[in-house]
Every structure is written in structure tokens, then in C-alpha cells.
């Protein structure tokens, strides 16, 4: 009864769905970190999975302050632990130190000591233009703004672009992310510090300087960076999608084989035509005649047009910020920088302050249509109606960022119209699709 729903509210004091509880929803107690051993940290055994047993569940907080010292002490200890964790320096092992150089003007060829006057068209010092840069010998992304001198380690499998001199160029988000996690030692270029020579100076870039230089550069908002680094931290590969630039006409990644209207669609149109009679003007839509089955009645009732995501339509223009800006690959997906596979997720990033309202249908529609058709597939989906509806025919993830707090929502083009549940095992009348009904119809 509807009361079953009612009851669910009463019992919701217990954490309801798994989906609803997430450790990073709330400020966690940094004292937990004290239990992680130093050795473990230095050996690089990381907490790749925060939900594993090494982190306790939440729920040890108090409802309200009380005047006990006990409570004050615990709070004070938590704050100290937090301070300590935050103050931990970013250290670089002398032998494994990876050094990069900030290149404020974008990709440039290496200084040629033999030839102190590089030809002007090769320096790239002219205003960086979109599109591949010549001169570096290889197509380096024009937004790249730091290069790694001695690239080694896991990260460069999915980050950066190598040029023909063995340097790996990083986009601003990549450079900032690697610096922030303590992997990369980025230097100010000599050209900026006024030191003699070319290339890296002695002066390391601070975290603060890196934010200052990289955030706001070539479309990298802090919201986009938060999404990038948040997903990277969990092991996802995150790469820029064609919708990155607000100004650029989007290249639709959803070019696909022409879709024929589904059988259902044609069938539906047929019925629409068949039943579009005077009965819809004043009703009853179901007609006054004798009804042979409930399915007949339901078919006649289908007079409200609905959007079918399968029928092809001209691609619409997406409007920022409702545009896919990242392609996301699961940690388990094999990723090759040179030939990226189709992404597992597509993400649009929204700053909730500048875009305080949810998308209109045309904004969301254009966004969804910029993604490829991804209908529910597989054994489980074909069995489970609700799962099909939740999955939908196209999908996109919106990352809504509220002052540093990212909230992800997955939107799916559900197309309820494709699921006639009256035809799928109600209680009545003869049915098609006998496999669902082992006993056949009950007459």
C-alpha cells in the first residue's frame, strides 16, 4: 500500500541505499590518518580504495557541543591531526625526482645551444593559435604549458604528450595535478626568474603559484580542475573532450550508423493513425465500442507524443556549460594515449554559482544528443524493466560544483514510451511474449 512508502521514511534513520552514503560527503576525522603508519605512506602503499577496511566508517560525531573537556580534547586532537596532514610537505626523492618547466607561452622547441637564434616560426612565441603546432616536430596540444624533462613513471602512460626531443608536454590540469600530488617538481623558467640560461631555473613553483598560473588558463576553470583531479585520484583516466572550448563548434562524437525508426515506433505510428478518430476530440479515447482486451484499450489511449531517442535527428548545438568537456575511462579500461577507446562516461562540468538553474530541455536534449546511442543491453537489462528505464538510451554525467564540492548526477534518456508495461505481465487478458508467462494465458 502507499503506506509501504510511508514506512520507508520512518525507517530511514538507518542508512538507506548505499548510493546515499558516501564517505566524502562529510568532513571526516583526520585522526584516522594517525593510524596509517609512516612506513606505509613512504612505501607508497596508498589507500587506493577509500571504502576498504582501513578507513573506519563515519558516525562517531556528536550531536551538539557540550561543556566537557573530553569533547574539547577530541576536537582539538582532530584539528591537530588535520593540521599535520595538511602541513605534510611535498618531497621529491633525490633519485626519483621528476622535473618539469613551466612554459608560459605554450609549446616551444628546446633551446638550441648551437644556434642561439631559433627561427621565429618555430618558437611558438607568437600568439598561440588553436590547432596543431608545427615546429615542435610533433603535434603538441596548443594548451600545453609545461614540459617534463625526465618523464618516468606510471603517470605518463595516460598523461601528457611526448615531442620529438623526448620531452613530455602537459596540459595545465595535468601539470597542476601532478604537482599537487607531490609527483612533479615544476620549475619557473629561467626566462621568468631572470636567471642565466634557458630551461629550468632553480626556483620551484609553489602550489600557490601553480594554481595562479594554471587555473583560468585556456578554459581550465577550477571547477573543471576539481572534477579532473577528483576522478584522477580514484584512478580514472580523464581526457579533454571536443566540447572543451566554449567558442568552438562542437564536433559531435556521436556520429553513428543511421538508425531506422524502431519497429515499435512504426507500430506506434500505425496505431496513432488507426485510432486518430473523432474519439480523441471529446473522448472517450478508449472508444465506446466493445473492448476485446485491456491491451487494445491501452493502445488506443496512446495519444500523447513522446520523444524517442532512437529516431535520428539533426544534431543540435550544445550550449555551455551543458557540453561534454571530459571523457572518462574506468581504471579497468585499457587506455592508450594515442588511440583512446570510447569513453566509459562523458562529463559536463557546471559551476552552480554562475549557472544556478538546471538545464532546460533544449540544453539537456542537445547535450544528450551529443553523446552516442547507448541503449540498454545485456541479459540483465533485458530481464529487468526498471534497470532498462534507469539506464536509458543515451546518458551523460553532470558534475555540478558548489564552491569546491562536486556533485555528480547521471542523466539518462529514459524513453518510458518504449516500455509498455501493460503488455508485460499485468494481471489481465491474453499477452504476447509468452516467455514471460510460463503458464500462458489463463483462459
Amino acid at each position: 500500500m502507499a503506506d509501504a512508502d510511508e514506512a520507508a521514511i520512518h525507517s530511514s534513520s538507518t542508512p538507506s541505499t548505499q548510493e546515499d552514503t558516501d564517505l566524502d560527503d562529510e568532513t571526516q576525522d583526520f585522526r584516522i590518518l594517525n593510524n596509517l603508519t609512516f612506513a606505509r605512506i613512504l612505501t607508497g602503499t596508498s589507500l587506493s580504495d577509500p571504502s576498504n577496511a582501513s578507513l573506519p566508517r563515519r558516525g562517531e560525531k556528536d550531536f551538539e557541543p557540550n561543556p566537557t573537556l573530553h569533547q574539547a580534547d577530541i576536537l582539538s586532537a582532530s584539528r591537530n591531526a588535520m593540521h599535520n596532514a595538511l602541513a605534510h610537505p611535498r618531497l621529491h626523492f633525490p633519485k626519483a625526482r621528476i622535473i618539469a618547466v613551466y612554459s608560459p607561452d605554450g609549446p616551444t622547441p628546446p633551446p638550441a645551444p648551437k644556434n642561439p637564434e631559433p627561427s621565429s616560426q618555430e618558437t611558438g612565441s607568437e600568439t598561440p593559435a588553436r590547432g596543431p603546432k608545427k615546429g615542435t616536430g610533433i603535434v603538441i596540444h596548443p594548451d600545453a604549458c609545461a614540459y617534463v624533462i625526465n618523464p618516468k613513471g606510471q603517470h605518463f602512460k595516460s598523461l601528457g604528450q611526448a615531442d620529438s626531443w623526448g620531452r613530455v608536454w602537459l596540459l595545465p590540469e595535468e601539470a597542476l595535478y601532478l604537482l599537487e600530488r607531490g609527483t612533479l617538481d615544476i620549475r619557473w623558467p629561467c626566462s621568468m626568474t631572470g636567471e642565466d640560461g634557458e630551461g629550468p631555473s632553480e626556483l620551484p613553483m609553489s602550489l600557490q603559484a601553480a594554481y595562479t598560473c594554471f587555473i583560468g588558463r585556456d578554459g581550465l576553470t577550477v571547477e573543471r580542475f576539481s572534477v579532473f583531479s577528483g576522478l584522477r585520484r580514484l584512478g580514472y583516466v580523464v581526457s579533454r573532450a571536443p566540447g572543451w572550448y566554449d567558442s568552438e563548434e562542437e564536433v559531435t562524437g556521436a556520429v553513428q550508423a543511421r538508425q531506422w525508426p524502431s519497429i515499435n515506433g512504426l507500430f506506434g505510428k500505425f496505431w496513432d493513425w488507426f485510432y486518430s478518430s473523432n474519439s480523441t476530440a471529446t473522448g472517450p479515447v478508449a472508444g465506446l465500442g466493445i473492448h476485446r482486451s485491456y491491451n487494445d484499450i491501452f493502445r488506443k489511449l496512446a495519444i500523447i507524443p513522446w520523444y524517442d531517442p532512437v529516431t535520428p535527428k539533426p544534431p543540435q548545438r550544445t550550449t555551455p556549460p551543458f557540453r561534454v568537456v571530459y571523457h572518462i575511462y574506468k581504471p579497468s579500461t585499457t587506455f592508450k594515449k594515442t588511440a583512446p577507446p570510447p569513453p566509459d562516461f562523458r562529463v559536463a562540468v557546471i559551476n552552480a554559482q554562475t549557472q544556478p538553474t538546471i538545464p532546460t530541455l533544449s540544453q539537456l536534449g542537445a547535450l544528450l544528443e551529443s553523446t552516442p546511442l547507448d541503449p540498454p543491453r545485456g541479459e540483465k537489462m533485458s530481464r529487468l524493466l526498471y534497470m532498462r528505464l534507469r539506464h536509458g538510451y543515451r546518458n551523460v554525467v553532470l558534475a555540478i560544483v558548489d564552491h569546491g564540492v562536486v556533485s555528480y548526477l547521471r542523466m539518462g534518456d529514459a524513453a518510458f514510451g518504449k516500455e509498455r508495461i501493460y503488455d508485460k505481465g499485468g494481471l489481465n487478458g491474453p499477452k504476447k511474449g509468452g516467455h514471460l508467462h510460463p503458464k500462458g494465458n489463463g483462459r
Partner: protein
Amino acid sequence: MNTTPTLPIPISYISGNYYIFSVDAATYLRREHHICGVLIGTLPLIPQQNVFLGMPLELMPEEARLLVEKGVACIVDEKKAHNDGIKSLLEEDRKRYIQDLESQGLHARRLQLQRQEQSREEALRKKEEKKAAKMKKSAEKQQQSPAAGDVAEENSIVDFFAHNQQKEQGSGSGSSSSRPSSIMVDEPYGITPTTSYPPLSEAFSDKLLPAPDVRSSYPLFAHLHSKGYFMSPGLRFGCQYMAYPGDPLRFHSHFLVSSVEWDEEIDLMDIVAGGRLGTGVKKGFLLGGAERKAEVSEAEGNESIRMFSIEWAGM
């Protein structure tokens, strides 16, 4: 840790947002001014998770404004400060700074070697113990013995930081005296500093920006803050702010806060949904805003706030 940084604290303005980069400042603002911000950076200690994050601390414009109004902080145009600062950095300052970093790196290196030595010994000892235990009761061995990584239980990172800080306060000699002579010191660690000050100079006078523009919800924010509540962004939870009765490190939030303007149309369904959401997680839904009085001209600071707490009645 209970130090008070030099006031006013510079808040970095970068591309439309407000940040704190100094850990001391972040700790101080939290402790003394109940401003928490949101940590958005990767914690280099444990970079592969999102539960514990690190510097920088992003502030809501409301938080930044409140601090500026209190005279505790000022807003610095960080792009300008860096552009000007790096270019005008004097060679001797730069050199001194690099030297400084080097000695810090050296110290960190020593500490770490010391640590490794200790844990090696510890591990050996444990191994012996384990052997003994194994002989006693082989059946229990799998469950009993912790992984080798857990050995130096007492060597928590707090220790490390404590040492580290001592040194940062200038006396490198104190800790080096306790260093076992067997450890060979080679190259220093490289360090990526958190802030740019030093080497840059903290003379911000020509880089200051006005107090941030804030949303219409600011009066309610400031009011709740003045009543002792800790506020944080609430969108993920379905509201504008979360209000905590104390430091969110220790306390659950009491309210899901939504601000409305005095004559703004309220959809009653928003109250239904908000009240229902709050009650489901044992929180109140708080709706409020600044009262607009026709007679009184909007005198600063004399605004009165009306707010209402809503819970599902359960009937």
C-alpha cells in the same frame, strides 16, 4: 599549531574564486573564526582517495567577505602578485630561498633515513616475535600477525610532522644531534613549497581587491555564523548551506539551510521536499532571509533576519 598568523590574512583571488594556501592560516580561521572552507587539493600523503583532501582551501565568497568585514583578511589579486613578484625577485633573495629549501630537504632526508632504520629494526623484532608465536600456535597465525606494513604503529605521521616543524622553525641542529651516526646523508629531498611567500614579498598594497560580491543569501549566512554555526556549501545535500553547531570535524550538521528573499515566491513544494529530506537525516530544514522593512532604510548591520525551522510532523 595554535599560532596566530600575521593579520590580515591574504586570501588569494584566482580566476573568480577565493583560496587560502597557508596551512597555518587555514587552521587559525577554522579555530578562531569558524570558517572552514572546502579543501580541494590532493593530499600528497594519500593521493589516491577523495575522503581526505589537502590544500588549497577554497572559500565561499560569503566566507571571504565575512573575513574582510571583520578585518581579519584581505583579498589579493594573486595573478598580479605572482606576475610582478617573480619578475622582480632579487637574485640574492632567490638564492637565499633556494638554500633554505635545500637545508629543509636535507633535514627531511635525514629524518626519513632515521625512520627507515627504526622500522627495519622494528620489523626484525616483530619477525622474531612472530616466529615465536608461530611455534606456539600455528593455527592462529594468519589472523594474528599484522601485515609487515603495520609495524611502526607508534610512528604516526604526527611524530614526523612534529620533527619537521621544529626544524622549520629554524633549528636544524636539535634533531641532527639525535641522529644515529650510522646513517649516511646524501642528497637532499626536493621540496615543492605550498605557498609562494617567501620568496615573494608580502607587500600587497597595490594588489588588493575589494571585498567579494555575495549572493542575496549573505545576510542569513552571516547571521547564522554570528550565532556560532559553522557553515559549509550545501548543494550536494540539497540546500544552500549546511549549518553545524560546532566544528564539522566533530559534529553532525543541524540544518539544511535555504535562503529566500523577503518577497520571493516560495514554492510550498520546496518546503515539503526540504522538510522531508531533513527529517530523513535527522536535520532541520531552515528557511530564512533578511526582513525588508519599508520604514527603515537599509542601514548596514541593522538588518533583521527571520528564519523558520521545519520538520516533518509525522502525521
